[in-house]
């Protein structure tokens, strides 16, 4: 196998991508997503945890009906709400007209009674503002629960370990969403795309019947294969680096970038080799893509269940957390890749032998 031959094939494939402007489309797509990432992050973060919408401006009006209780003061305490005491029917009508954000109804159960206090909370259905106010209402309710629990504390048998948590803790899900979910997702996307690209590279030669032409040149079958693998592979660190730059432009700093690129490249080679094996076996795009995408789901699920998997390590490295085992894991992944590469090479040689006969 000659390196120059492999490089020739890799250049041919990369040129093909360049000519078809497909890579331009891919980069446009990245920029498109990045442009709206502020929108995306707000939307997705609140999907991940709706309480992250918790910052309110101004304040909201709340209708209060029923018996007097400390809850009204608790709601007004932080300046988040203005509480209006009103009749339940009128409060319900005002809520439907969106003049109120929510309505609470409190019965006259005594604080230290045997029965629980049952509060009815009326909110707007399917509304962003209801999600925002819901967080603050919960805080007030939890404070009221603490007061009631205090009044009934003589009836409790055990006390939990007391640790004072600062009052403003909570709702900080942006960090964990970005570093713990978005970063590994975006960085592994190029790997997944490249692996499905190699299937197209290989099956195309079969479907357009250009393989014979290629083989009539001094190139061997394995050289052609590794050239294609190389072409798909070099795109991964480039695209991953583009994501890191785009994230940085959006104010999300990624730490230990070289190590992360090493991990992504090593892990992506495994996926690309799996794609190449599948494509060599089926030689037809529809079947190969189908089998590959199913296998991809299996591999991803199985890998994510293992502690210290590459995605986990990338999260730790990106967030600047200690990842003591990441070098050992990298060596492990590389060893696995090496074995898979040998298997692919053997399989390709066998196929080449058959083609010659």
């Amino acid at each position, binding site marked *: 196998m000659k390196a120059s031959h492999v490089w020739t094939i890799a250049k041919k494939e990369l040129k093909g991508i360049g000519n*078809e402007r497909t890579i331009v*489309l891919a980069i446009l797509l990245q920029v498109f997503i990045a442009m709206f990432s502020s929108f995306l992050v707000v939307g997705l973060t*609140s999907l991940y945890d709706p*309480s992250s919408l918790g910052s309110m401006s101004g304040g909201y009006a709340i209708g209060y009906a029923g018996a007097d209780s400390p809850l009204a003061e608790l709601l007004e305490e932080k300046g988040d709400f203005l509480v209006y005491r009103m009749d339940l029917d009128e409060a319900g009508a005002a809520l*439907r007209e*969106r003049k109120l954000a929510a309505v609470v109804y409190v*019965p006259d159960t005594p604080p230290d009674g045997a029965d629980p206090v049952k509060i009815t909370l009326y909110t707007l259905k399917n509304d962003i503002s209801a999600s925002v106010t819901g967080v603050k209402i919960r805080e007030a309710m939890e404070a009221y629960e603490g007061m009631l629990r205090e009044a009934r504390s003589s009836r409790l048998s055990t006390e939990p370990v007391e640790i004072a948590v600062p009052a403003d803790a909570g709702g900080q899900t942006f960090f964990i969403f970005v*570093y713990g979910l978005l970063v590994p997702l975006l960085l592994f996307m190029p790997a997944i795309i490249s692996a499905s690209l190699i299937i197209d590279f290989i099956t195309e030669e079969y479907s357009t019947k250009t393989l014979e032409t290629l083989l009539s040149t001094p190139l061997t079958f394995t050289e052609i294969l590794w050239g294609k693998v190389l072409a798909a592979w070099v795109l991964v660190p480039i695209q991953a680096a583009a994501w890191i730059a785009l994230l940085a432009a959006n104010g999300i700093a990624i730490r230990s970038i070289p190590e992360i690129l090493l991990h992504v490249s090593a892990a992506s080679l495994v996926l690309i080799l799996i794609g190449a094996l599948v494509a060599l076996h089926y030689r037809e795009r529809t079947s190969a893509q189908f089998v590959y995408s199913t296998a991809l789901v299996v591999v991803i*699920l199985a890998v994510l269940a293992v502690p210290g998997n590459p995605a986990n390590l990338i999260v730790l490295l990106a967030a600047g957390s200690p990842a003591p085992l990441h070098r050992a894991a990298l060596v492990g992944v590389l060893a696995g890749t090496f074995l898979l590469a040998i298997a692919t090479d053997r399989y390709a040689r066998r196929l080449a032998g058959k083609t010659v006969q």
Partner: protein
Amino acid sequence: MSKDVLPMTVVLLVALLLASGLIAENGIRLQDGIYTVGTDDAGAAAILAGDPRFVVSLTDSAALARSQDAYDLVIADGAVRGNPTEKGRAALSAFAVAYRNYRNSVYTGEDDLFAAYPLWIDTVEVTSSLDFTATDNGQRIAPKPQGETDVRPSGPVEDLPTPPATLAASTEELRRDLADAPAENNGIARYLGMFSSGPDPGEFKTPSQLSPPLPFDSLIYIFVFIFPLYFTSQFAMMSIANERIERRGEILLSTPAGPLTIIAGKMLPYFLMMIAVSSAIVLITGGSFLILLPLVPVILFFLAAALLIGMTARSFRELSFLSIFFSTVMTSYLFFPSIFANVHVISLLSPLTLVVLQFQGTGFSAADYVYATALFWLSTAFIFWLCTRNFTEEQLFSQESLTSRLCSFIFAAMSREHPFASLAVINVLAIPLVFMVQMMYLVLLFNLPLPWSLVALILLAAFTEEVARSVGIVALFRGIPDFFTWRNVVVAAAATGLGFLVGEKLLLLVMMAQVTGSLFGTVLFSGVGLLWMPFLLHTAGALIVGAALKAGGRGAYFPGILLATAVHASYNLILIGGAL
């Protein structure tokens, strides 16, 4: 697909089951060890022992005091402190949740349930109706106190029954619900639980179980309804591309069946499949079959796009990238507006909002339906017409690049005898696509602060219109290079301007009343009243591009477009300057 896919599928499905079992057993190990905690308190360390996100180091107080900054969190003297970094705050937030769960697990073991959980909440959701007049100028409705001392409903007051003071559930039931639904805030799981009959958190909740209502129901509808449609349209795309790449289409084309018959025949099974999948989803989710009404134009549009992509892509990789690009853009177009269902009139741009409204029980009117789907119907018709005109041997098996293919598609659809009339007609027909792109900008940009959103909208809208107008001229220019004398350039520009004007006004009459009323509408559609001003503007734009092509050849196309955009944008800015 070849035959030996089936055994492999069985093997993979078994492997999938095993892998899901592994995940269920081990959990997703993505965020393991992201936070570091230092403590001198064994009790506190025990609280966090079960949470893999935290790496806890148990040391003595002196060592802890020395190396405080090394940890994200420090627990000492019965209090927790976070590092003043973003990560430290996130760790503190995660600790607050873990600590709350720990307290709840202690309280759940209590004998006297109502001493441990003295407060229970019954949540009632009230549906509110859309108010178009208040949302017309890009403002959201949100209940904000106006400084008045009293809030009074202005409409009729209905009787709300006074809720009973006691819980309508036994202590055992409440205890079971507490054990089933721990007070944890696992966002995604709640969405996944929407359609499954998993453990119900119970009718009554303690304050810590009280999770804010889900804001983005529509996201679920995107996943559930739109993704199966993508997959099916992928197959349609591949089937068209296969005809071309393996030249099987030649046999089909040699039969007496016309292109329309072939296309209809090829698309029908996919259409039926998509309708069947959507109906099945409607049956499973228990919705009304009215939901299919807004989905039909979306399905047809997907098929039209699949046909166009299948006919223009030169290879499978180009096909893959085009389809990924198309699906991302379409997801944004369908998804972003529907986030604002109930909040903003912009949401009605997406047919999915109608699905959301139907699921909520609000329903939609015929006018809403026309407004949300008209662009889909018209664009679909245009793309199908274009593809039918080009479903010939010559066009299907050429290996030109993407842009020149599109140009030759347009050129093939024109009549050689009446080039100017064809130009006008092409422009009339392209209007729905142009509007769709401009609506896309509106969807993406209206969230920006006001002056920026207007400026960006003006520039992008002008650019898109100029590109769309130039397409017909470029196609003619490439098709018949010596056609363009200076006289013909002027006539072609006038024909383009006329076609554009007629198409624009026709479409505005049909459906745009709601958007044109607002400030954004003025930007996009440059005033409805005067006719000769927009006509001159459209003609001038086309003339600039035509003259650039005539004088400088194909290299001058891009500068020409930029110049035309600048002229167009400054006209609009002056117009808006008056409006502002």
